């Protein structure tokens, strides 16, 4: 499997084509817009938090297959998670993405482990992180609220 095929796994391309969690973020109380200035990719992600749990999540945006599939996989993984669990998962995901492919993901990352190969491509790290950074901002806002 070439680096390219490892990066664009079936799973990732499928999520990019039929993304989960896409919807109107503005129906949720906490929304955040995140932009990748180098390519113009952007995402707006909204969440509702009930009793410390992400009880609702929707995102909208446009971008490359890495940023879109990452948003989709993250929605699957963290929709319904507790805030603490979500924040810990985001932290681990970030650590993996910063590792240049050297970090071995734990079970916690689920399908998001597929981005381990993307981490080898420094310039694509931001793509994969886009949705996660937006969710992190929403969670912090909900915590402060």
């Amino acid at each position, binding site marked *: 499997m*070439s*680096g*390219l095929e490892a*990066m*664009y796994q079936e799973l990732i*391309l499928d999520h990019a*084509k039929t993304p989960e969690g896409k919807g109107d973020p503005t129906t949720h109380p906490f929304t955040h817009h995140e932009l990748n200035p*180098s*390519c*113009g*990719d952007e995402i707006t992600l909204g969440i509702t938090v009930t009793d410390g749990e992400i009880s609702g999540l929707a995102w909208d945006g*446009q*971008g*490359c*297959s*890495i940023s879109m599939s990452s948003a989709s996989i993250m929605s699957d993984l963290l929709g319904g998670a507790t805030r603490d669990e979500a924040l810990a998962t985001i932290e681990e995901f970030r650590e993996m993405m910063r590792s240049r492919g050297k970090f071995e993901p734990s079970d916690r990352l689920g399908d998001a482990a597929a981005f381990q190969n993307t981490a080898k*491509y420094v310039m*694509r790290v931001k*793509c994969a992180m886009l949705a996660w950074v937006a969710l992190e901002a929403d969670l912090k806002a909900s915590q402060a609220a």
Partner: protein
Amino acid sequence: MEDSTSLSFGEHHMAPIPGASARADFPFFAAHPGTAYLDTAATSQRPDSVIEAERVFVRSDYAAVHRGSSMATGEATWAFEDAREKVARFVGAGEREIVWTQNATDALNVVALGMADASAGLGDARFALGQGDEIVVTAAEHHANLIPWQRLAAKTGARLVVVPVDAAGLWTLDGLREVVTPRTRVIAFAHVSNVTGLIAPVVDVVEIARGVGALTVLDACQSVPHLPVDLAALGVDFAAFSAHKMAGPTGIGALYGRAELLDALPPARTGGSAITVVTLEAAEFLPSPQRFEAGTQAVSQAVAFGAAVDYLSAVGMAAVAAHEREIGQALAEAVAAVPGARLVGPPAGAERAALASVIVDGVHAHDVGQFLDDRGVTVRTGHHCAQPLHRVLGVAATTRASAGVYTTLDEVEQFREALSGVRTFFGVSA
């Protein structure tokens, strides 16, 4: 001082020929066999002669320039000014008409910030703008030739007026004429667009500008490295270009200006070496170029920049331009040959620079670029610092292949072949 022109150019000891022959002079390609480097519009590789000229200088001839009286300083100053003379001659300028800057962006800022200072009463009133004055740019400009003018307008109350582009990203002289008025004070435009590859009719723009007494500011980033350019003959007032796009080093660019203008433009960046008399209250500035060169300059980079124009001159800019005309057409044809790929800017067959920005239907530019990268083709993906233009094109990002003196038709073929596999890989073609 080592005379860099006496260094041999790679394997051959004769003048290099654009393409495969010149390629042998660039160590990057030996380090990356099989790679098609199609990102020269972003930044160029440097030939051995340039790398070595700087290395020899730094190892044995380096000292402070233009300050002090030591022999070491004298020799270094000589090398530094010799480089300026080479670069000046390369673009048809007088020595005092070339100011070293950090890069082309910085050069454009020197003009815009100098005009802001003049507008604030700190210098020659001919550069002062105010309410009612107009600055004209095109909608295709690089951010470097757009944002400094936005900021100047915001500071002075002048209005920024934009020449529109069509769906292909192209502007026209008629479009320009429509927005120019007697209140137009500056017309800033790119000689060659880094996205569309359009080559601007500079002489006509200068004539329009002169008709209303406006200054012309030419972004020559993508022309000076690729075409024979005589700035005096073109008649522009100011021009900007960067060494790193023309076989030279990063860390240095050049501002061209007509001497009488440069002698009068206030220096926005101030400090040592640029001055005559400094009291605690005020400073007086030297004539150009020193007035703009505050602080320690990019000395060894200037020497390398000189070696870079020596290299390009040895190849011959006419030969470079002829070669790149061929490559430019081949790039355009390569894109035309791939179903689902669309070329931005002039179509194949029309005059264009040796770069091709591409939209692949159904595949994001980042994904296109990643696929090409995997196939050994280095291209550039993104908005290429031209967001407003991309907004007109209806996409956030394009994929750009661009060429230089060392680019070969084989690389174009490698690009075409890779490009033709993109849609299948991402599952969007029939």
